[in-house]
């Protein structure tokens, strides 16, 4: 594929995936350089005029545009499945080179050098990126793109004559992004995009396992049980008040058959501003109830790597 087509695809992806704020942050890095303009009336102008001009004038490198896409695609709005390798031997074998060799054979370096590949393969899945993390060299990320059609209910319903109800469904193309992340020494994440259908989410997860299968298989891993970790987060809340807060929690007292749900009214709320809620939740968990769900707001860190609040549903 030509460089021109890659740039066109990349700009389209930026428009669809990135916020105006993220695009402006990239442009702002080159503020003051000729052909770099930051403000725009609309997001279309921001991409089609400002970013395109900056890329064409080489004020911004295409690689930086890919990084922007990577960030938007690989973080947030995803379901994440966590796995732990069953043995240390399995974990130790999951190096970047070994995985690449198992996936693409001895000429893997040539394949990897062509990544990222943003163009979709019609009605199919393909490897689109594989890279290690410069800050944590034993970690790696594999990305798979899929091209599929989905049938979506538009919400339109009409009564069309006696006993006839009409509901409108439309078929739409969907770009599927599947990501496998290895976090050395012992955590594998399979990330699939958010979807209303649990079955679809599980189908995508299985597809990702299938794409990984020349290199690793589910039998080598066990699911990471998050219940205890969630309970620990709640019980240790006061020591970690600068790190996270909670917005919602679900606990199950299996012995008494009681399901309790706590939610703040505001979507930016903090459950533990209510002392009674803190006590109730901690009492449940201290009595060995199960934590079935938790919405954690991770607070910005001091090292600048994590500049904004981030929310996770567990």
């Amino acid at each position, binding site marked *: 594929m030509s460089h021109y087509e890659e740039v066109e695809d990349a700009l389209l992806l930026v428009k669809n995936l990135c916020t105006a704020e993220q695009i402006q942050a990239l442009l702002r890095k080159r503020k003051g350089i000729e052909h770099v303009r930051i403000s725009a009336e609309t997001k279309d102008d921001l991409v089609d005029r400002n970013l395109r001009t900056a890329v064409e004038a080489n004020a911004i490198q295409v690689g930086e545009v890919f990084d922007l896409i990577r960030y938007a695609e690989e973080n947030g709005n995803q379901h994440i499945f966590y796995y732990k390798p069953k043995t240390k031997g399995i974990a130790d074998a999951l190096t970047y080179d070994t995985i690449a060799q198992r996936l693409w054979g001895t000429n893997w370096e040539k394949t990897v050098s062509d990544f990222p590949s943003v163009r979709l393969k019609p009605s199919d899945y393909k490897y689109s990126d594989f890279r290690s993390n410069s800050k944590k060299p034993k970690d790696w990320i594999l990305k798979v793109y899929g091209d599929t059609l989905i049938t979506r*209910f*538009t*919400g339109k319903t009409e009564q069309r004559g006696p006993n006839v109800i009409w509901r409108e469904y439309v078929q739409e193309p969907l770009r599927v992004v599947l990501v496998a992340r290895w976090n050395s020494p012992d955590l594998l994440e399979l990330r699939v995009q958010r979807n*209303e259908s649990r079955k679809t989410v599980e189908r995508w997860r299985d597809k990702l396992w299938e794409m990984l299968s020349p290199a690793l298989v589910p039998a080598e891993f066990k699911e990471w049980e998050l219940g205890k970790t969630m309970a620990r987060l709640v019980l240790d809340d006061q020591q970690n008040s600068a790190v996270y807060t909670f*917005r*919602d929690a*679900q606990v199950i007292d299996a012995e008494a058959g009681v399901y309790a*749900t706590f*939610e*703040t*009214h*505001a*979507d*930016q709320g903090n459950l533990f501003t209510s002392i009674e809620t803190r006590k109730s939740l901690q009492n449940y968990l201290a009595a060995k109830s199960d934590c079935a*769900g938790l*919405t954690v707001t991770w607070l910005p860190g001091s090292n600048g790597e994590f500049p904004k*609040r981030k929310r996770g*549903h567990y």
Partner: protein
Amino acid sequence: MSQINFEDLANEHPEHKRALRKLEEWRRRHSDVHIIDPKTLAREVQGVDATALALALTLLVKAGLLRRVYKVTTPSGVLADGEFDDPTQIPPRLPDRFEHYFDTAESDVVPVFRMVA
């Protein structure tokens, strides 16, 4: 919504000075909040009645410091994630706080305010 903006507005509209001051105090205590829910605000801001607060919010909208957006309540009555510029943009289904999707046609739509600056 900086201090200067409040100060300018209060000077331009002395009849709303008290409500604007109270709003400014609230804002200082909640600098990380980007969405203002009038219901929460009325509960947390003491000493100003709801009408005066509503008028002060309208002034901030007119001054371009706030934008009116819409949120949807979940079946349990809390605000779902996501906000919409117009109620017609609300999708037919949204996830609640625990990723269970619900029909928005059955839900309340709540006008709230988003910080612009």
